[in-house]
């Protein structure tokens, strides 16, 4: 489901989104759907970025505040916030973001490696950078996000 499946010469498709006022993008294959915000059920003993769980057609899925998870503080309440439902190696979770903008197609060589890898705060979560229309999009490593999730829960 990740872009590693796609051969190098084919462009990868990403969905760009905004969290904490900054631009991110996520491999389109991982995204299942995008929903508007609905109240969640709080989970005890969860870390602050885990907002709770919501009902997605009968499945219980955790909702994570992406901004908070990336260490940028909690997302403020806004009716325009959306939840991006992602599928990661058999698990489904929702990411609370401020906005989802568009689908972008990027050739393999258009993704630059994250130069700060392993030195900054959350190195594993940003695996690349895409420069686009004078804006820089950070490519999110969802698996890394989900791994952190598992560790919290355990």
């Amino acid at each position, binding site marked *: 489901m990740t872009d590693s499946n796609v051969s190098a010469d084919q462009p990868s498709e990403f969905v760009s989104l905004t969290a904490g006022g900054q631009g991110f993008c996520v491999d389109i294959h991982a995204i299942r759907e995008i929903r508007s915000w609905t109240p*969640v*059920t*709080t*989970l005890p*003993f969860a870390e602050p970025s885990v907002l709770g769980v919501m009902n997605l057609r*009968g499945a*219980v899925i955790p909702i994570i505040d992406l901004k908070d998870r990336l260490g940028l503080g909690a997302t403020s309440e806004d009716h325009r916030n959306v939840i991006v439902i992602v599928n990661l190696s058999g*698990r*489904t*979770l929702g990411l609370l973001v401020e906005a989802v903008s568009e689908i972008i197609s990027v050739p393999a060589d258009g993704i630059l490696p994250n130069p700060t890898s392993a030195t900054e705060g959350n190195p594993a979560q940003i695996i690349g950078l895409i420069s686009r229309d004078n804006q820089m999009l950070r490519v999110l490593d969802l698996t890394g996000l989900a791994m952190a999730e598992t560790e919290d829960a355990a």
Partner: protein
Amino acid sequence: MSMDALKATFFAECEELVEAMTEGLQQIGDDDWGSETVNAIFRAVHSIKGSAGAFGFETLVAFAHRYETVLDKIRSNTLGIDADVLRVITRASDVLAELVELAQVEPDAKPAAYDPVMTDLNGYIETAAEPEPEEDLFAPVAFAALPLGLDEPEDVRIEFAPDASFYRNGHEPERIFTALGPDVSAVCDADTVPLLSDFNVDTGYLVWSLEIKGKTESEVAEAFEYAKGLGRIDYLSDDAPAPVGPVSEIAVEVPAPPSTQAKPAKARPASAQTLRIDPERVDRLINTVGELIINQAVIAQKIEGDGTPVDPEVASALDDYRYLAREIQEAVMSIRAQPVKSLFQRMARVVREAGEATGKAVSFETRGEATEIDKTLIERLADPLTHMLRNAVDHGLESPEDRAATDKHATGTVTLSAAHRSGHVMIEVSDDGAGLDRARILKKAIANGLVAEDTNLSDTEIDNLLFAPGFSTADQVTNLSGRGVGMDVVKTSITSIGGRVTITSEQGRGSTFTILLPLTLAVLDGIVVSVADETMVVPIATIIETIRASSDDVIELSPDNWVLKVRGAYVPIIDLAPLLGFRTERNAAGPFILVEAETGAVYAFAVDEIWDQRQIVIKSLEGNYGAIPGISAATILGDGQIALIVDPEALIALAGPTAMTSHKQKVGA
């Protein structure tokens, strides 16, 4: 079908065959049997052998063959059934069942009892003074094609006389015969071919007698599909269908094949017809039906929720919907339900082995074998029950000498029973042994550092020490029950399927371990409550009662230690909202839910509001998230919101030492 899928079918079939075999043996043991009983056992063993051969399970085949030979002697009355024979064939079926189990992991492993039982079986074969059994009589069948589906393969004998149109259409008999598989013998009768002078090129003269092994008639008919109407096909088996195609004018006398291979009577084993379904499909169905129930509740709430009068027709249609949804749910659940009989039969083997290993004479009694519970539960009960039964024989029952000294019958009795009790399944393992030696248990617990030396414990608390992790230690390891697994593992595995274990024991009269299980893993009865702003569910199984107490009954012993006065007894209060981190201030007003912990201690859970009791569909949190302390799972309420299901035991543990030090309270009802 892949090889793995075929193997899975084989093992599923073996399970049924082993069941049929065990059932037959039981009838013999109960002295309620006839030749059909022995036939049934024989058939079961024979079928296992046949299919096992197809997979090359040689150890299994070799053993089944020996066993079958002995059974054949019984069947043909050359060997009578006495106590010894019964013992040997019972043990042989145990070994066979074990071999089948082993074959799933380690095809050529032999269980410990393999060699002695094999020797015993050989003993009967030799004492009956006959040479090596007629191997070839059964061997071909042993490698028959794997039985698939509901049609039991048979040996099919047919006579095939194609007429000229068959050849004219370009068909070749050999093609058809090859398509029937490797186990076909074809004999061509060329006697009807006339002399060349009388030969008519437009006539088909040849007649084949075919014997096809391990195929059903329908499979054979399929192979002959193209020959339909192009000749004569006669089925020579007893219950042959009408010949296919017109009877040609060349009627030929064909000698009937020798009838020495007549199969045992056609009657199938008495066990109920079953349909094999991949459990995942059923699970998917159960899940979807769960959604349907929730969806029904959502609709009901949307229609009735806003307080406006509801159109009576809508209301009645809604009622029908609710009724139908429940009906479907029950029906689907019952697909998963299975009688505990097969499990109990397996346990009989465990007890027999345990009796042999310890040198104790044990009579094993079962009750309520027809009790139905969820298949998953049955599977997950096997290990804990095995352990408990071994314990009952090894530690529960006294040695024969000790029993004699106490005027007990030399044969100890271990009873395994199952029953439905108010929405639960109760499974009991009891022995008529000496009962728990509480002084020794306490001493051991103190020695292992589980309790302080000066602790004053009630009998129940002492009994429950058996379940404490670290209680079962190396010095009590016998090669039977002490396999490094303690009763704590038993308890953990029972708890993990939503059950509880309790012990009752009477000095000199024996002990009883009671397992209380939910009927299924998918639904649960619970009380819906509010904790802070959250809606939560408390499983009803542990709840004694709900109480609205006056403020006089809530007493503060220390800032962290509050008790509730219930009919003269003091019960520690566990305030859920602060405990779960939803709120900091205390809720001293209740209402309260009294729950009984496994230790027998009673606690009062303080909540903000108690709504109602209902059946809820359990949704796992662990699939997408992970385990949460104090929470066992989640459910979806009528309004589509998720409510967490609390785990009372875990909450009590979470509440920490303050609550844990409380002593057992007697709360008069």
